[in-house]
């Protein structure tokens, strides 16, 4: 179903972090941006669709005004809002927001870090753009920060801090189908597998809490009102977001899942794990019964690679990209 295409070389190898690959298509310029985190650096590649041009950029996790300070980066992700796209980078020190091409840092939010290290590590992880103008970021304390993003400029404000999770937030995702009918438009996950379902707005509203089972939910997606969650046990679970009804449970991988992605137009689901496998699935909604089904379509093995990032490159799932721990390339697969 898919075949391997020419890989994209990156300047540094990928670190073993959840959801460590991000993709943004810039259709008017026929370009795709890729980001991969390596320790304290974000590697960014802009690749032209004809495969002829690659330009690289590296972003350091620097606090403004403290020239020597660096800290490990936990995640980098593109947030697509109505009027602008931003690249958000989270680290042990705080949250950086850049223009999507990485050229200008428009905002910096420092985390409260104790003077001497505590047993509970401090970091931000879990990034999602929500609706027209919000960017949400998770914190290791379990708090969720909501930033209000103006249509241009750097006047970004922290509008809310929500405390529904008591464990470190692992990942979060907004409704990706673009459907306005779905009430829930954000799901957040944490280190014991608890899921919170939200409705965004001037004040975010908690719609539902889906209890976990003491196992990290490392990657989560929201599609047509269905939460798709990947766990450390290698399982994928499909929940109805607002009711918490479990629709499907899949014994999907032999090791920790590191990344899930959905192609919203086709309902294709991508899952990738430490077991070196990437799998493609197909989700189908049955509106009459209000249920969702999942079917397995395809496997790709990236030999001897613990995969840490996998993303579709387009909304139909025509192509996807993969990277793994210690790997200095992004491998691309395209439908045959």
């Amino acid at each position, binding site marked *: 179903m898919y075949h391997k295409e020419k890989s994209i070389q990156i300047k540094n190898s990928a670190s073993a972090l959840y959801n460590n690959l991000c993709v943004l298509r810039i259709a008017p310029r026929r370009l795709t941006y890729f980001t991969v985190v390596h320790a304290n650096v974000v590697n960014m590649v802009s690749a032209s669709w004809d495969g002829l041009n690659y330009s690289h950029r590296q972003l350091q996790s620097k606090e403004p005004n403290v020239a020597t300070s660096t800290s490990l980066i936990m995640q980098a992700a593109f947030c697509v809002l109505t009027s602008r796209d931003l690249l958000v980078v989270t680290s042990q020190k705080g949250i950086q927001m850049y223009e999507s091409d990485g050229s200008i840092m428009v905002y910096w939010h420092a985390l409260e870090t104790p003077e001497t290290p505590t047993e509970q590590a401090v970091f931000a992880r879990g990034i999602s753009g929500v609706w027209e103008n919000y960017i949400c970021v998770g914190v290791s304390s379990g708090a969720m920060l909501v930033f209000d993003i103006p249509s241009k400029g750097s006047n970004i404000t922290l509008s809310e801090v929500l405390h529904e999770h008591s464990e470190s937030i692992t990942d979060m995702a907004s409704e990706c189908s673009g459907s306005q009918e779905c009430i829930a438009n954000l799901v957040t996950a944490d280190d014991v597998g608890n899921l919170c379902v939200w409705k965004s707005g001037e004040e975010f509203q908690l719609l539902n809490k889906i209890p976990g089972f003491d196992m*990290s939910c490392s990657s989560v997606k929201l599609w047509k009102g269905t939460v798709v969650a990947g766990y450390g046990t290698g399982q994928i679970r499909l929940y109805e977001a607002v009711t918490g009804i479990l629709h499907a449970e899949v014994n999907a991988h032999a090791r920790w899942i590191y990344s899930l992605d959905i192609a919203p137009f086709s309902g294709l689901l991508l899952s990738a794990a430490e077991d070196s496998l990437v799998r493609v699935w197909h989700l189908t909604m049955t509106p009459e019964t209000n249920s969702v089904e999942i079917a397995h379509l395809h496997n790709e093995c990236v030999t001897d690679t613990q995969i840490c990032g996998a993303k579709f490159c387009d909304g139909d799932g025509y192509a996807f990209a993969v990277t793994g721990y210690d790997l200095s390339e992004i491998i691309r697969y395209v439908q045959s």
Partner: protein
Amino acid sequence: MSSRTLPLLFINLGGEMLYILDQRLRAQNIPADKAKKVSTVAAWIEEDRKRVMNDIITTMFNKKFLEELFKPQELYSKKALRTVFDRLAHASIMRLNQASMDKLYDLMTMAFKYQVLLCPRPKDILLVSFNHMDAIKDFVKDTPSILSQVDETYQQLVEMYTPLPSGEFQLIRQTLLIFFQDMHIRVSIFLKDKVQSSNGRFVLPTCGPVPHGTQVPGLIRIFSCNGEELTRLQFNNGGNYTAALREGSFEIFGDRVTKLGTNMYSVSRPVETHMSGTSKNSTQHTKQVNTAPNPLAKEELNLLARLMGGLEVQKPGNADSGFRVNLFATDEEEEEALISRPDELSYGVINIQATKDQQTNAELAKIMGEFSESGDQSPSASSKGDDLLAMMDGL
């Protein structure tokens, strides 16, 4: 990232170091082996081996040292940790030259990287650590005072780590993997066992038992709105997995089930590395990380100073000092390795910055003094080849 990573890094690397040294000390004790290179290798007697092992383990489990180690903190830089192990390896009467020390450190780090990468669940890093602790206890089983020291740390490990949730262990594992990132040194024992490929990457099997708590991939279950199972579908998982083994014991005594972290060396399976195979690409990356300014350098060195100050050090120059252990087959090979080692892989001297704290300064000065061991050695020991004989004469 995780501030609980350092104790596990230290204990597991220390455990690997002890395996390798024990193997070398035993190998050099074999008369047939000795006969072949009588001029280069000292004849170790069993008593010396035990003494070296005991001295190093005593230092490793020094109470003050471990107190500092167990405090929540970021990992040391690669250089600082290397310095700690340089000191530890020289805590007894045994001496290693630069090339042997480099090789020892490469072997230790690649072995633990393998264990971290391959452990089935992040939590199994603790079982790997317990395998090392079990072996360390066995090394000192005839010396009750050291044994109780090791047991105390064992207790502390169990209390501190067993209650942690799976996500915290994954964070520890990810922190360790960043520490070991881009190290691709080829190790002959791994190449022979086909667990490492020629490009230095470890082999990840897509067969065998799945981790405890994980189901063999291949089943989809669909449920109705009231929780009834509607359908079961099978899919091809692309591997050849079997059901999980029983869970290893997280108690002080018990079967760990996993073999990761047990002693893989024996006299018939000597230790070797293939430095030439290190890809140029990867060393460049390593360099890049190493040269990044480390904001924690000052605090780290202050801490190191406190730690080292707390260690009882056997000063060289004692009547019975001067046993040298070679991690290579011959001295010539050892010398060659030192010359041919890529610069990127060499560990330079740490630049210790002066601080305002006078006490720290004094401690640092003391450590600096202790580091310059070569200066204390008798002139006869300095020229290569003669040194061992001279030391032997000195006994």
